[in-house]
């Protein structure tokens, strides 16, 4: 089966500073992959390159067999990118926002209309569909952005800190939605600083440090690697990254 994401020898520098250093990793189709790492480790840079927002200095990236660097439009067609700061327009309503995003991805009008209704209802925004986003809470904005990311039924959903600033109820909604997407066959890659979320939700976990992959695997594989049978992800993370508690 084709891998959802295949990164080989990826490097990116900003000025003289190395953000991603010869990184290679693979995400399998249909799994929820958590990419963890300390601040400044290179997680967001890596994901932004995959989403087509940055150009790498070197390396190869494939998304479901499509070459992101050689044919970015084909790759973007099946990717969704949701950063921690929602990419919204304050003066548009959620429905208008979805209308715009669906247009960008060329979703057929009837399909987009039905999908928008389904997503907004699922995320509890249907009653707010005609209100401008400027009056929304952080959680409502995050959910609107998430609906935008899902309007074109992406095969690969990339989320950077999707739970930042959300209250427990909204965070639960988002987590449920991500798991439902995975069950439906989509692949999800997320970064998070909430290690319990990664531990509970992720099929596999990659830990990145100084732009390189420090460790990768399921929880059991990571435990086996460190030799700590009952360790939590927090313990493993601190040990693998050499950070002190």
């Amino acid at each position: 089966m084709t891998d959802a994401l295949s990164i080989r020898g990826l490097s990116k520098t900003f000025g003289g500073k190395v953000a991603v250093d010869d990184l290679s990793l693979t995400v399998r189709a249909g799994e929820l992959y958590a990419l963890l790492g300390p601040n400044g480790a290179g997680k967001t840079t890596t994901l932004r390159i995959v989403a087509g927002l940055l150009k790498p200095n070197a390396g190869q990236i494939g998304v479901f067999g499509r070459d992101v660097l050689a044919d970015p439009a084909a790759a973007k067609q099946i990717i969704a990118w949701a950063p921690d700061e929602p990419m919204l327009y304050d003066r548009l309503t959620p429905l208008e926002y979805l209308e715009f995003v669906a247009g960008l991805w060329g979703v057929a009008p009837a399909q987009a209309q039905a999908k928008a209704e389904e997503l907004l209802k699922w995320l509890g925004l249907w009653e707010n569909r005609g209100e401008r986003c400027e009056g929304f809470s952080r959680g409502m904005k995050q959910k609107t952005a998430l609906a935008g990311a899902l309007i074109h039924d992406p095969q690969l959903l990339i989320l950077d800190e999707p739970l930042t600033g959300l209250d427990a109820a909204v965070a639960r909604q988002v987590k449920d939605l991500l798991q439902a997407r995975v069950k439906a066959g989509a692949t999800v890659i997320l970064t998070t600083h909430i290690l319990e979320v990664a531990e509970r939700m992720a099929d596999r976990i990659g830990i990145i440090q100084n732009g390189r992959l420090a460790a990768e695997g399921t929880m059991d594989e990571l435990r086996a690697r460190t030799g700590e049978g009952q360790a939590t992800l927090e313990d493993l993370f601190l040990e693998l990254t050499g950070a002190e508690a």
Partner: protein
Amino acid sequence: MFAPGSTLWLMRHELRLSWRGLTERRGRGRGRFRTLWLSAILPLILLVTAGLPLSFALRRVQISVSPISVAIAAVIAVALFTLMLSQTLSAAVDALYERADLDLLFSSPLKPRRVLTVRFLAVAVNVFTLVGLITTPVLLPIAVTGHPAWLALEPVLFSVSLAATGAGLMIASGLFRLIGPRRTRTLGQVLAAVTGAAAFLLGQAYNILGRQQAGSIWAVIAKRIADPSFHAPPGLDWPLRAMLGQPLPLLGVIAVGVGVFLLANQLLGARFAADAAAAAGVGTGGGRARAAGRARFSASAFRATFTKEMRLIARDPALISQVLLRVLYIIPLGIVILRQAGTAQALALPGGAGALSLIAGQITGSLAWITISAEDAPDLLSCAPTPTRTLRQAKLLAAILPVAILLVPLLVPLTVMAPLPGVAAALGCAGSMGMTAALNVWWQRPAKRSDFRRARQASWFVTLMELLLGIVIAVATGMIAAGQFGWALIPAVLALVGVLLLSRSDAQVAQALRAAS
């Protein structure tokens, strides 16, 4: 220097923020330095070019209190009040909606009324400072060389700014109560723009009404004033007497200004805080749900982007007010052109056609900057599979179409009445609009759309080039309108060369954007 929490301490805080806002408006780094430099050099220039010559010319002139001088002083006072009102109304509307720091101040142990009084006072001081920067260098030498009492103009101006602040607050608060928070923001901004342009439109009465009709109105007024039996309404001479430094009228004018300010402060102080809190909920009103059924999904990225840009333009009160202000300047110009075309007095047509092309280009430039550079979700567009060219074309159409719609009612009758100037104006407008749109694509400077409220953030270089090339195109337009085709080639070729020199390839634009991010 001042005790923390005191009125003066708060005032210093407010003025510091205002000053920084003013310097940021002109950009960071060298832009800020330029503002500081201009603030220092402008009074000096005024002193040398206006203050000193006027002080010499007026040193023996005595202004008598006659009906004519009284009327002129009253008109000046009203015009100043109107101009100041446009600024204070805008500031009052801003105070309602930009309330992050109000939250901080209200959550502190300071009395809310003191906070608001100081904030309102700062508005008056800021408005007065801008006017004072111009009047003081002119007035000082006149006062020194023979008319010290005329310095009374400064307290008169401050009183007018206090009254304008009070009136601005009352209008903003009244609108809030009458039409609700959402519409107040839009209408307040538009009203501020229209009020600001009122003085200009009044000055254009000759052009709007026609020389004959306007002249007859002024003649009637002048005749009425000159009539010995004419008695000015009581108190109408006070502005003049106050400006001349007569103590009692001066005290009266100051009392009126301070009175209006204090009245507004007293009446609205507590209510204003509540309005500001209510304004925070704007956007969650149930009334917007009506729009819910009007979603128009389309598989076309071009159409979706164009629709989105048009919606954002239509919902941006600050942008609308700024564009409206420029449109107001077109009105007298358009009327002059059409009147000249209608009466076959074609002398002013070439100039009018050229000016029209310049203004059309300037409005397009503002809109193009908003649609091209002020993209609030650039990453969303970058990660979409839509080609950049498609997005850009949709954005440009959104910038050009509103201006074209504004111009059509003017250009069509003009072309019918005077074909050559009409076609020349249409060509000039198209050229000017195309030039500013292209410059905004080639020299993009990404910024948040909300920054437009402070000022257009395009680079000074692009702004300058837009103006220079716009003038060159305007000259070419005027020459074509006058039938001077051969001479028109020179500015036309110059403009073309300028545009070509400033052009950038897509790769160069992308590289510049990457470097800027």
